[in-house]
């Protein structure tokens, strides 16, 4: 559940940037013969709408209807009481409150007979209630799958998203830096410290997961409380900043020599990601590099943001990445007696920078 800072900052997300994204999407829609596009958003699937409008939901769901021209319509099941808040986080489109967003948008479509084809991102995943309302209210409109079209437009990171990713990554790193493995020997204080640091820095959301004893199990759980951790453990910080998400994993050890070895692998991994060849599959490069240093690869995942999910395992990690697209690479390996886990965001060929920006603060 979202508890972090949610606010639209026009300096960080300029209206012109959102206009440019909308223009690119509309150009692709025109080329595909679409009269409109429907993007769904809820707490778990906010990314498509966030990219177009900066909006991240904390409650309920909504659809953003993008006509070929004219103002987009944000049809939300949140009540009119929340419109003031919605306007502080969503500068795009006309906000309409309705218990049945599908009916509202369907009526808009029905009243415009020239509209024949409307794309829907991830149509098979659209909640049945919304889909059925759309179909029943506007039966003459063909709803067509548009995920590939949206992914093609959305993929590359623009300057605005680059800034937000850099900020999100800084928050994740700051959170992970708050861990002292010598002093914090239980899950609760560990994850709490990481989460608090990220939230104090202005994270919109922070999911902190723990592999409590890397010698026993390299899988991560949502663990907290007084669960003891082993001599080596790893923490995964999944952090959102103004609608964009990154993941970072860092491994820790109580033994200084082991800790130094883990830090050495951190450096190797960072250099590896910085030097990835954007013309080859990322997973293959990472796997080759790990094996080249004599490590056993225990887990490897490459994620992207192409649709409504903030991050999702890439369907084809073997293919060369699209230029300028955000990837998150997660790797777990064993090298001798040492087990190490790491994850970091990477835009192949376009490194994320540092930022010291302070989070938004408003005087009421």
């Amino acid at each position: 559940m979202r508890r972090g800072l949610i606010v639209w900052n026009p300096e960080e997300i300029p209206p012109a940037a959102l206009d440019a994204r909308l223009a690119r999407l509309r150009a692709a829609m025109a080329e595909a013969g679409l009269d409109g596009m429907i993007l769904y958003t809820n707490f778990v699937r906010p990314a498509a709408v966030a990219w177009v409008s900066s909006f991240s939901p904390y409650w309920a769901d909504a659809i953003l209807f993008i006509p070929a021209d004219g103002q987009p319509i944000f049809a939300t099941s949140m009540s009119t009481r929340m419109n003031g808040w919605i306007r502080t986080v969503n500068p795009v489109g006309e906000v309409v409150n309705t218990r049945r967003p599908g009916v509202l948008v369907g009526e808009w479509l029905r009243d415009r007979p020239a509209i024949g084809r409307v794309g829907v991102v991830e149509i098979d995943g659209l909640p049945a209630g919304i889909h059925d309302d759309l179909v029943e209210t506007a039966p003459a409109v063909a709803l067509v799958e548009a995920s590939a079209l949206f992914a093609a437009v959305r993929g590359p990171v623009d300057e605005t998203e680059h800034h937000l990713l850099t900020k999100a990554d800084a928050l994740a790193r700051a959170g992970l830096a708050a861990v002292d493995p010598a002093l914090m020997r239980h899950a609760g204080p560990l994850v709490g410290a990481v989460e608090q640091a990220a939230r104090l820095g202005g994270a919109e959301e922070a999911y902190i997961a723990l592999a409590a004893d890397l010698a026993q199990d390299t899988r991560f759980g949502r663990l907290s409380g007084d669960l003891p951790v082993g001599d080596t453990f790893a923490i995964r910080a999944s952090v959102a900043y103004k609608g964009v998400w990154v993941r970072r994993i860092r491994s820790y050890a109580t033994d200084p020599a082991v800790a130094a070895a883990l830090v050495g692998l951190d450096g190797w991994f960072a250099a590896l990601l910085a030097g990835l060849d954007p013309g080859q599959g990322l997973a293959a490069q990472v796997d080759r590099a790990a094996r080249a240093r004599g490590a056993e690869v225990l887990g490897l995942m490459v994620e992207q943001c192409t649709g409504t999910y903030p991050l999702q395992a890439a369907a084809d990690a073997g293919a060369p990445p699209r230029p300028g697209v955000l990837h998150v690479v997660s790797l777990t390996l064993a090298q001798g007696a040492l087990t190490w886990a790491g994850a970091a965001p990477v835009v192949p060929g376009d490194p994320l920078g540092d930022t010291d920006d302070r989070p938004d603060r408003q005087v009421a």
Partner: protein
Amino acid sequence: MLQQDRIDRVSGVMDEAGVEILVVYGNAWQNDYLRYIADFGVLEGQALAVMRRGGEVTLYLDSPLEVDRAAVEAPGLRVVHTPDLVSVVGRVLSSAANTSIAAAPMHLLPRGIAARSSELRMTDLTGRLDHLLMNKLQAEVDAIRAASHLADEGYEVFVRAARTGRADYELIAEVESFYRAKGVDDNFMIVGVGGPEVRGMSPPSGKVLKPGDLVTTELTPCVGGYYVQICRTLVVGEASPEQQAAFAIYNTAMEAGIATVRHGALASDVARAENDVFRAHGLGDYVTDTYTRVRGHGLGLYVDTKPAILESVHTPLEAGMTIVVHPNTYHPVVGYMVHGDALIVTQNGAEVLTRTPRRLFQVPA
């Protein structure tokens, strides 16, 4: 074991309805139906659980990270990873041709599954599961009771954190850190900061606390999947006479609502008792949906379950239900205020769970 008891209840419902296979959808926002049968709180991605009448449950997850989490947190659960939930679960259902299939919650089921309802002869079991979610097992009530102190303790942390010059998200950061230390994995929490310009609560927006501000919060820790809620209002500095007078109305309204709670009372009775206090003070406009959503609601495996406490909802309360009574709304002089306590409906009244004093808190300016 609570989970087995829940499974047995659902099996019983399936038996009564003549259903052989139940498919349930869940995500981190709406997780109650899924958690009831799978005993796993999905966080990222989406999930479908397929339960057979005999009690066998298979959980389908589209996030590999969630698959790992399930292995760590629910090792006895049968889990299948698939990036394409609709196709894979669709094939499972197709292979069960000529058996009776039901689903819940129907309106959230992915369209790719729901569109095959006729072909699969799939019926809607949402209402029957709603009944199970509302009318809890004793072990569920005990779990909520055991967790209720965490709502109080979380609010103590919030009060200690609330000081002039601090931003709203900083207060929440402290509460979340506290909860992780206590083994509370999830929490639903919204805030409001300011004066008459504030119409409700929301996630933090960077508001900085200043003297005179009302700071409202709804704090809902989750323990073992079950949510407990408390709502309280504090003032930065000394409360004004107007703020004190307004609070007195909210407190009287909450207590009137709680006094109405008993087995057999209707949700509408509770709402009316709260609202009549406001009406008696000339504030009847402010108990309408222009200014407030509900006057309370159920608590359980979801933050905001049925029954909604509204004058239009005539659901009978039954002993063992867990609800929060909260006359949260806008006050035209001082702004938005909140005040709410969680409770268990008993045969003759209510067992109030949250113990935080019912006062308008004041923190040093």
